[in-house]
């Protein structure tokens, strides 16, 4: 459109009245910067060891587009129904919402969408191409399953070797029924293996099949877990009444019905295994005390778990160290203890030291020791480099030997389901890169993170976090029914509406509405800034509630 310029006053109107639009006026030529719609990573996603694109799937739940939301979750996380129950949700620690009120209950929303998927989505077998290279996965715990899942989705044929008669690893043997019901586990695993992953049960590598045979595969991912309970090196620790907590949990999970009615069980430890063992023993009728070296606040187990255990009747003895065990009779044991004191030094570090003359002893029928687990490195090939307790891998799960990768508890210091899943996914990426002769770094995303200061909080009202319904403590302790019943559909929608969608455009139209030059065009929920008219004022950047627009310098130096 051309601009009209009058050549004499006679042809002009009497007042300043528009005769046409102002498209001739290319205001964009005035600017040195231009806004660019650019999604960033929300801190929840960065803090998620699996890398789930949380704000995107939450936005889809908001829109009740559950199938799309489920698919987004499954891009990274093969088992949301499981992680929604058992993950200790580091995503919520990073949630920007905490600066306004409380972080979002992301785990409840993940569980919701995971359960929805189990009910509504049927797995179709994927086509795998043997020409691309067959992959062996050793161990069917979360790390092995994650690696197998991501590789089959990329079209690689995968065989999983499992020495037990059932798949699942620590998910099946380490986590109690009341936290992760077997029916949920079975359905979730079935949905994954049905993609076309070959599962060879009762097949222990190194015994039923040799490592040399596995070397015929194009790549091998080892995720044999960490099942060896750490020793305390204390007098009496080998007595029959002293038992590793993990062993106890595995037996319970395998279906053994312990009768601990009227028995006193002492659990040593302060992590989630200690809590699981304590609550399981409680359900078998025992009176249970946890002996923790630290104060309750500094325990490694999540505050929710501790809270629920206390509700059920588990006693927590803080700041207690164990010096040894004494045999009383075949059924009884004395535990010699000493009290600790807690000191905080100048740099905020907490130190525990023995309190003089504070020795005491407790009598119990059974002691369960949860002082951590190590991997059994003896079963691994000799030529892989190891340190004292774990296998050496880089951030991509690469071992010292080409084509051998490892992850999960075997290789990680953070022995949780989420980290195991993440390590499986990363190794799958690295294996793909290896087979395609690419650099694994090239597969890593350029990470931009939305900080809470980049948000426009004026757009969000304070709204309290929704709560999950829990089984009554009296009902809980007499059986293994799932304790956490999740959120109602109503609560799910209320909770998901609290999500800021940090760094993630959700087509709120603010940039479109506020543009003073009408330079933001909208088409099918996508925005385009017309640089001919954009003056670079930055109003859209300011008014974007969620930091999904960046101001870029057109020429010259960076801002």
């Amino acid at each position, binding site marked *: 459109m051309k601009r009209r*310029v*009058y050549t004499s006053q006679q042809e*002009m109107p*009497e*007042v*300043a*009245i*528009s005769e046409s639009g102002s498209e001739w006026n290319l205001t964009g030529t005035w600017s040195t910067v231009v806004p660019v719609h650019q999604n960033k990573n929300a801190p929840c996603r960065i803090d998620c060891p699996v890398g789930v694109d949380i704000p995107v799937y939450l936005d889809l739940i908001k829109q009740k587009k559950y199938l799309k939301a489920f698919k987004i979750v499954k891009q990274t996380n093969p088992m949301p129904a499981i992680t929604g129950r058992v993950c200790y949700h580091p995503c919520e620690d990073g949630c920007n919402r905490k600066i306004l009120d409380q972080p979002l209950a992301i785990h409840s929303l993940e569980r919701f969408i995971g359960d929805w998927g189990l009910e509504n989505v049927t797995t179709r077998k994927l086509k795998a191409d043997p020409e691309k290279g067959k992959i062996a996965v050793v161990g069917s715990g979360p790390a092995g399953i994650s690696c197998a899942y991501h590789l089959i989705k990329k079209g690689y044929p995968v065989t999983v070797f499992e020495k037990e008669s059932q798949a699942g690893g620590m998910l099946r043997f380490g986590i109690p029924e009341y936290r992760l019901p077997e029916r949920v586990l079975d359905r979730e695993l079935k949905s994954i293996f049905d993609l076309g992953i070959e599962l060879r049960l009762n097949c222990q590598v190194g015994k039923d099949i040799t490592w040399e045979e596995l070397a015929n595969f194009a790549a091998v991912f080892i995720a044999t877990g960490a099942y060896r309970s750490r020793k305390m090196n204390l007098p009496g620790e080998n007595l029959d009444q002293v038992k590793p907590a993990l062993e106890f949990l595995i037996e319970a999970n395998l279906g053994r019905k312990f009768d601990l009615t009227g028995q006193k069980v002492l659990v040593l430890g302060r992590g989630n295994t200690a809590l699981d063992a304590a609550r399981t023993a409680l359900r078998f009728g025992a009176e249970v005390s946890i002996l923790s070296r630290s104060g309750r606040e500094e325990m490694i187990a999540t505050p929710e778990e501790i809270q629920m255990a206390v509700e059920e009747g588990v006693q927590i003895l803080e700041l207690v160290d164990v010096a040894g065990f004494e045999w009383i009779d075949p059924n009884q044991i004395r535990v010699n203890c000493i009290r600790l004191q807690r000191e905080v030094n100048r740099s905020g570090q907490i130190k525990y030291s023995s309190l003089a003359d504070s020795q005491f002893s407790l009598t119990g029928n059974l002691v369960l020791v949860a002082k951590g687990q190590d991997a059994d490195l003896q079963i691994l090939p000799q030529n892989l480099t190891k340190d004292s307790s774990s296998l050496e891998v880089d951030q991509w799960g690469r071992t010292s030997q080409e084509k051998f990768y490892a992850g999960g508890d075997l290789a990680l210091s953070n022995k949780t389901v989420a980290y195991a899943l993440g390590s499986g996914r990363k190794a799958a990426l690295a294996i793909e890169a290896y087979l395609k002769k690419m650099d694994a770094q090239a597969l890593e995303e350029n990470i931009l993170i939305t900080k809470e200061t980049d948000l426009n909080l004026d757009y969000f009202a304070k709204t309290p976090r929704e709560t999950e319904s829990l089984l009554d403590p009296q009902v809980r302790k007499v059986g293994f029914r799932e304790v956490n019943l999740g959120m109602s559909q109503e609560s799910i929608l209320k909770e998901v509406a609290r999500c800021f969608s940090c760094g993630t455009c959700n087509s709120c139209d603010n940039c479109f509405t506020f543009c003073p030059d009408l330079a933001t065009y909208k088409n099918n929920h996508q925005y385009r800034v017309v640089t001919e008219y954009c003056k670079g004022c930055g109003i859209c950047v300011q008014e974007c509630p969620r930091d999904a627009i960046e101001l870029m310098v057109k020429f010259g130096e960076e801002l």
Partner: protein
Amino acid sequence: MKKVITGNQAAAHAARLARPDVVAVYPITPQTSVSEMMAEFVARGLLKARLIRVESEHSVMAALIGASMTGARTFTATSSHGLALMHELLHWAAGARLPIVMVNVNRAMGTPWTIWCDHLDSLSQRDTGWMQFYCESSQEALDTVLQAYKLAEKVNLPAMVNLDGFYLSHTVEPVDIPEQDLVDAFLPTRIPLYRLDISDPHSFGALTSPEHYYELRYKAQKQMEQVKQIIKTVNAEFSRIFGRSWPPVEAIETQDAEIIIVTMATAVGTCRWTIRRLRQQGLRVGLVKLKMFRPFPGEDLLEAIPEGPRVLVLDRNLSLGLGGIIQQELKNIFYSAGRRNQIFSAIAGLGGRDITPEQIELAVKQSRQDMYAAGQINWLGGKI
């Protein structure tokens, strides 16, 4: 129908008879009774208009601008500081060429805080592009409001009708209130030059580049210049219908005068009486009434004041740093025309001080006898 009413009541009756569509009001002494009466007319169903009560005079004018742009006939009344608060929008209304009619009841500017009359409030708005008229009597106030509508809508410029605060606004005299059908015949429905219309959308008053602003001001000036003639045809038509005439400049006994007083508004009435007395004393004194201040009727003044006599300008205003505003404008006209009449300047009646016949007589005598120079200010009636 003749009624004994105040100047404010006369102005309000005129506004009612003009049938405005929108009246926006905000009170200020000494104008308030105009607004009150308009509200009463609307409340009693005597005027079918939208009466808008707003929170300031600035908003009054903003409301009238918006209404006027839709093609509505509009009215308001204000005074002094209220007028000053409108200042920005007075420019806007004139630039948008909107025929808004406003009564301003003259009140001096504070501080020193005052509610009484002088003309600095309206004269301070002389460059805003509004036509300005000053009234000598309540009848003239009524008739001038009616003429202002006719004129404003012909030339698409806003008009301000000024009444001296208290002297005119609050004193009573017999006024002929014309019949509605006569007014309707004189003042037909407004035909706007442009109007806001959603079926034909345009933006008005938007950013205008240097290539066009100049010419738009030129056109407004040309229109203002034409007003000096058009007002005469309007007055002639008014005179035919109503039998009263209000020329922009009125000359009284100027032909043989050795000295001619020039002044505006209610002081004119005092001067009419005073020159009769002076003529009885044998002094040949004339009087020129300046009714229209914008556009400034220079040609009419040159015609009304012959070459030769001295001129005494009674300014009921003071432009600090200069002196009387009317004398300055008159000098401009005379100098440009090559006229060498001696022009004497008296400042009188500031802040509601009475301008008395004795003061006028004194000023005439002092001017005649060269008791002060033509370039000096005669602080008439001041305790100097």
